[in-house]
């Protein structure tokens, strides 16, 4: 006990000295600092996607902070690791609202973290712009501070089934990854496909990441016209690859989680000709998207992950809103939240404008087809269809 006590005392002394001597970095100059926080998993199994969000935001800040800096503000990015865990996300959220300089949060990756965390932001009407949470609940709560630049599960599922119908697919097999995102889209795809008269001959979820053989065996026996995978490319790519290796001839389709050059890097020629839906246009068709990809590659020497573009747009909107709020000379969180809803932004993922709930008013969706097995030619993917769809009307 004595020894423990001694150690505790020494540590206490050290802490006390440090508190007094280590000054917290205070606001240095000008009108002060505006901080943009990101919250996404930076460690653990989903770190790659989480980092994409952080990097997208970082690129946007570096590129677009000019006007604010000219006006005398210092603009900084504060990345938080939410570890994809709700309790960590909430603690971070409390930490974020305690930092008065943080005016907006870009995040999260997981709806499971976003929902409880946004309850915390709400207390101070701190704006959160989500690049990735497609779960309808995120905006259906009608919080004044929560908006999202990504689509909704219900919309994207519908885009998919609409297209599948047009492709003359009579039977479809739906697989999803058992996450809120993947299953959400798959559910809506299935429901809408059935409504449109397509035959859904299988609907299954799996957390498996590597070995899809046992799942593919019955699919092969049932031989559907189209297989829809609701999930992210790192699971979808091995799935499709193994499916082709196993000799399946069906058409493949997936949501925007498949929109990554890594899809072809992993699955190679297996996914050539596959369809995916996306709100972000391909680089070849949209010059903005092309320059984003180029700049991203130049800065971070890799291709942007899914949601990096959304994070970029979200940050751009955030900065615009802050600029608008800053015109009064003083930036408040309520102001920024309110301004975000007024921003009209023409971003990489199309024209963005929010409705009263924080959803995109009308979103332009693309259906794209993978053109080449070479990952560096991901940008060549062709738009095979464009759809403009508004978020679903309020249900009671």
């Amino acid at each position, binding site marked *: 006990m004595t020894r423990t006590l001694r150690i505790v005392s020494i540590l206490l002394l050290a802490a006390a000295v440090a508190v007094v001597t280590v000054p917290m970095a205070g606001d240095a100059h000008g009108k002060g600092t505006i901080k943009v926080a990101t919250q996404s998993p930076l460690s653990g199994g989903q770190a790659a996607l989480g980092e994409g969000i952080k990097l997208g935001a970082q690129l946007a800040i570096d590129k677009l902070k000019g006007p604010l800096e000219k006006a005398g503000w210092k603009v900084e990015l504060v990345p938080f690791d939410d570890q994809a865990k709700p309790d960590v996300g909430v603690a971070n959220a409390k930490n974020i609202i305690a*930092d008065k300089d943080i005016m907006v949060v870009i995040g999260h990756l997981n709806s499971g973290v976003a929902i409880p965390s946004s309850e915390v932001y709400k207390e101070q009407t701190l704006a959160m712009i989500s690049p990735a949470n497609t779960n309808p609940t995120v905006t259906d709560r009608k919080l004044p501070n929560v908006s999202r630049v990504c689509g909704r599960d219900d919309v994207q599922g519908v885009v998919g089934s609409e297209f599948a119908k047009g492709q003359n697919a009579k039977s479809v097999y739906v697989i999803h990854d058992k996450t809120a995102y993947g299953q959400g889209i798959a559910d809506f795809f299935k429901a809408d496909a059935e409504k449109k008269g397509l035959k859904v001959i299988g609907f299954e979820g799996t957390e498996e990441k590597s070995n899809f053989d046992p799942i593919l065996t019955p699919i092969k026996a049932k031989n559907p016209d189209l297989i829809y995978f609701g999930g992210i490319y790192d699971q979808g790519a091995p799935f499709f690859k193994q499916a082709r290796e196993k000799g399946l001839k069906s058409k493949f389709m997936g949501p925007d989680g498949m929109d990554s050059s890594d899809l072809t890097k992993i699955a190679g020629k297996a996914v050539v000709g596959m369809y995916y839906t996306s709100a972000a246009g391909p680089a070849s068709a949209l010059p903005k998207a092309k320059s984003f990809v180029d700049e991203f590659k130049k800065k971070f020497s890799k291709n942007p992950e899914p949601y990096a573009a959304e994070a970029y747009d979200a940050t751009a909107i955030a900065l615009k809103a802050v600029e608008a709020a800053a015109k009064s000379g003083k930036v408040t969180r309520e102001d920024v939240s309110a301004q975000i809803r007024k921003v009209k932004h023409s971003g990489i993922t199309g024209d963005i404008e929010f409705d009263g709930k924080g959803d995109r008013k009308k979103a332009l969706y693309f259906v794209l087809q993978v053109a080449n097995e070479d990952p560096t030619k991901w940008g060549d993917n062709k738009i095979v269809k464009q759809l403009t769809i508004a978020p679903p009307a309020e249900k009671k």
Partner: protein
Amino acid sequence: MRGARVIRRPLVAIPLSVLLLIVSGAAVASFPRSVLAFLLFQGAILFIYLAAMPGYLRAALLAVALLVMMPIIGAYNVYYLEIATQVGIFAALALGLNIVVGLAGLLDLGYVAFFAVGAYSWAIFGSPHANQIFGGGFPLAPGWFYLFIFVGLAVAALAGVLLGLPVLRLHGDYLAIVTLGFGEVIRVLANNLDKPINFTNGPKGITPINRPPVPFGLPYAEYSYFLVLLIVLVVIVVNRRLEDSHIGRAWEAIREDQVAAQAMGVPLVRAKLLAFACGASFAGVMGVVFAAKQVFINPESFTFLESIGVLAMVILGGMGSIPGAVLGATIVTVLNLQVLKGLSLWLNELKNAGVVILGYPLADLPTQLEPAKYERMIFGVILVVMMIFRPQGFLPARRRQREIEVTAEEHKTVTV
């Protein structure tokens, strides 16, 4: 050496404790965002716990720190209140697991399953979700929350017994792997029971979950802190009473030597089941509180890693030790939510401020080396180093003398 002995003297320790409390409180008030200041405050609490002083004084000082100062600190910085609340939640979990692993010596790698059971029991009925199962009439009014604390307790305890009945005959690592399997089964069930009947809403989770009505117009964060604190206190009292009874002694006996314990008349299966049920019930209660606090739950909160985290708390603190479990929960939670985060934020600030270290501007640090990304790695190193240099934990269980005092008094009153 001499310094330590001086601290053991109440005359030095008491004023020092008070001083520390005041200084740390003042530090948090003047630097509300300083991680170190809050650490100083936590250290002061630990110091009070360890330093020599009369029991009532210690209790009074701790009460001042936890009941008065902590909520005030929370008013300066809600984040710290959140940390304190989460410390409380994990402390209760660690105390529950401490009964199973620390006292009864049964390795449980799926403990978080009971937490999940408790959380879902309130989440389903305390949200509109139950309408999908029963047709209508939900959510239950917020006041039901208090009843559900006991429902969570009962359901989790029942789950503990149901798991325990078939598997408690297994030894050591076989028991561990079965509990691990059970934990996974519960999580996967939660993830999948959205069809054929939608019980859990699968990965999409359940929201909004009702929060209990808050008395006296307290802010919710404060209320939630007090509620958790109250539950932790109850759990500690229950834990201590169990520990200082024939039940607790039977558990320890089983841990030390199962065969001898049985030969001395301890019914193994019943005692182990009781340990499982008690441990599980604490987790169940905290699950209910957690669900209400988060407003939203989904299966991601109940992964295997969470079970491992709680186990690490118990062992870091010192197996079988109540203060150890609380300290372990504090260390892991504070480390994870505060210290490591604080460190990476600090580095980030240095980077943004353009600090140059050894001629290398931090701003040029490649994004791969973002400090926030390696918190878990540091945590891993700390675990290994701790185990090597202090395997018995920070506050190992020690045989207590306090029963003597109790019974000595008893002795007098009865014999007179």
